């Protein structure tokens, strides 16, 4: 699979038809689906029709858009008009959205083609893709291991060459962690840079659409298309003028200061992950950056804070899946409304979703609100303050993306707390609403890829992608290789 910017160039100049590109992508999607269960739907007919429409535009001399013929895979919690969107849940098994999310509307207007809807942990709740009602996706580097989550299918799609670009959502690391587990780039923009309109809500103050890709130029290309104010999302940043492509190709990092987070770069990480941090420090220094250490004293409280705030918001957001209007209804009407709601929710929401709804309900319930939810919001402020202080001294903050590389299926699924603790590095960016990217950093244990994470202040996304491009330029083709999955 070529990069998005190469495909668009070939299609726009008539070297290759959009139809040929999309047919190749769909064939690869079938092969990947057969062994790795990365997708919930493959909308073949719609994808081919979209490709034909692009080829027709080109034949007519019209501009087919900057992403002409580029296949994209979309996480199945982002609404696609006419294409079933399940959020990985049985409660939305039959939901076919009558409208597009704004990010999809903008991608399609630029000529991109949705080739598959990616598997995910139900409603984005999970770090291994094992909480999908449609079965777990598997890691293309080793099919006995998890691909990460919750945007697991999106990461598999990019690392196994189905599409150069996939969209995910990132509430506590759900784009960055699977990117690290698959050896690709996972970028979570500043909160408010990408519209959440049409994105199925998990925790509204933390959710952000993110991009998985293998090149900084591809990320820049789609960000320039997708970012910018959307009047349908009240938290969309007004007067946002994305300038990603213009910010690329930093030849060096002279004058850039990077702070490695003391609390997150020692104990608790595997040796392979620590070696990746060490390699990254060397590379940064070679490129002229100054690498120092920085303390985020409240970072160790990130997990407790996040797992109080996110489930509290989720318990409210998921109240709508009650079987009344359009989510799956279970039970006879004669039972009455309350009983049908209880049955519908109990039968169509999975175990992890039920657990988080109960956690959130508890944290918000009378008598506990101040002790849990209110307290968590104050610690959230402390964490944001720590980061602000770090950014007064450093341009970027560096951490591992995850404490380990991808683990075996089933290894952690029986211990929810153990699974939550692995999100220690990623939740900080969501709590503070800042930009973050997971950058491929070679192999950790047993040949499995891992990543390092850079955090940037809010609205410094372009600068962050510029840093990414410098690391990429320095490493060339070894930067984010495709997985060895043959299919």
């Amino acid at each position, binding site marked *: 699979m070529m990069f998005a910017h190469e495909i668009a160039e070939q299609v726009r100049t008539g070297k290759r038809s959009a139809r040929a590109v999309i047919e190749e992508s769909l064939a690869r999607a079938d092969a990947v689906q057969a062994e790795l269960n990365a997708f919930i739907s493959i909308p073949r007919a719609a994808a081919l029709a979209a490709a034909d429409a692009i080829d027709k535009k080109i034949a007519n001399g019209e501009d087919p858009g900057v992403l002409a013929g580029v296949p994209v895979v979309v996480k199945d919690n982002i609404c696609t008009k006419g294409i079933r969107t399940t959020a990985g849940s049985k409660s939305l098994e039959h939901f076919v959205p009558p409208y597009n999310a704004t990010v999809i509307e903008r991608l399609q207007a630029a000529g991109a083609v949705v080739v598959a809807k990616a598997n995910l942990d139900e409603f984005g709740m999970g770090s291994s893709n094992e909480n999908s009602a449609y079965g777990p996706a598997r890691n293309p580097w080793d099919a006995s291991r998890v691909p990460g989550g919750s945007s697991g299918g999106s990461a598999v799609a990019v690392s196994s060459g189905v599409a150069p670009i996939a969209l995910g959502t990132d509430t506590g690391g759900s784009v960055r962690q699977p990117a690290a587990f698959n050896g690709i780039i996972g970028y979570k923009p500043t909160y408010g840079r990408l519209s959440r309109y049409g994105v199925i809500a998990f925790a509204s103050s933390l959710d952000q659409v993110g991009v998985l890709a293998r090149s900084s130029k591809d990320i820049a290309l789609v960000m320039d298309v997708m970012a910018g104010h959307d009047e349908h999302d009240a938290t969309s940043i007004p007067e946002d003028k994305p300038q990603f492509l213009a910010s690329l190709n930093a030849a060096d990092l002279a004058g850039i200061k990077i702070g490695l987070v003391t609390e997150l770069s020692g104990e608790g990480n595997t040796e392979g992950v620590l070696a990746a941090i060490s390699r990254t420090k060397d590379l940064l220094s070679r490129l002229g950056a100054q690498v120092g250490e920085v303390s985020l004293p409240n970072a160790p409280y990130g997990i407790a804070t996040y797992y109080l705030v996110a489930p509290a918001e989720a318990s409210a957001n998921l109240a709508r899946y009650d079987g009344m209007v359009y989510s799956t209804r279970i039970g006879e009407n004669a039972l009455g409304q309350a009983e049908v709601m209880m049955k519908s929710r*109990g039968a169509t929401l999975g175990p992890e979703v039920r657990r988080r709804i109960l956690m959130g309900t508890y944290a918000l319930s009378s008598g506990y609100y101040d002790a849990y939810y209110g307290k968590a919001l104050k610690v959230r402020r*402390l964490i*944001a303050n720590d980061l602000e202080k770090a950014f007064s001294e450093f341009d970027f903050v560096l951490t591992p993306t995850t404490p380990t590389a991808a683990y075996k299926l089933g290894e952690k699924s029986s211990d929810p707390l153990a699974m939550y603790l692995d999100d220690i590095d990623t939740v900080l960016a969501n709590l503070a609403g800042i930009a973050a990217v997971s950058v491929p950093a070679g192999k950790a244990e047993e040949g499995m890829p891992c990543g390092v994470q850079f955090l940037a202040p809010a609205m410094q996304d372009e600068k962050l992608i510029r840093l990414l491009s410098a690391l990429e330029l320095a490493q060339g083709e070894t930067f984010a290789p495709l997985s060895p999955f043959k299919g």
Partner: protein
Amino acid sequence: MISDKDMEHLKTLARLEIAPEETHHLKDDLNKIMDYFEQIRHLDTEGIEELARPVSLHNIFREDKIVSPLAPELVKALANEEENGFFKVPRTVDSSD
């Protein structure tokens, strides 16, 4: 500590039917998780303002212009049950009361 009685109350509040055995497991999970959360209850947050959302935006209104709504038939097609253009749901209030 979350008790069995608390669990029944939470299930009602959250409108979730959960079998007794799973309720028992969930109670143990929740207690283990809430124990872990105790660490932040002892942090000094005196005078710290809550941070509920990461960007402070106020009263962003869009222009009050007429646009075409979603076609009613598209929306009705999603309904579990529909009658005369309305969503049909189970009875809310018992008529025998």
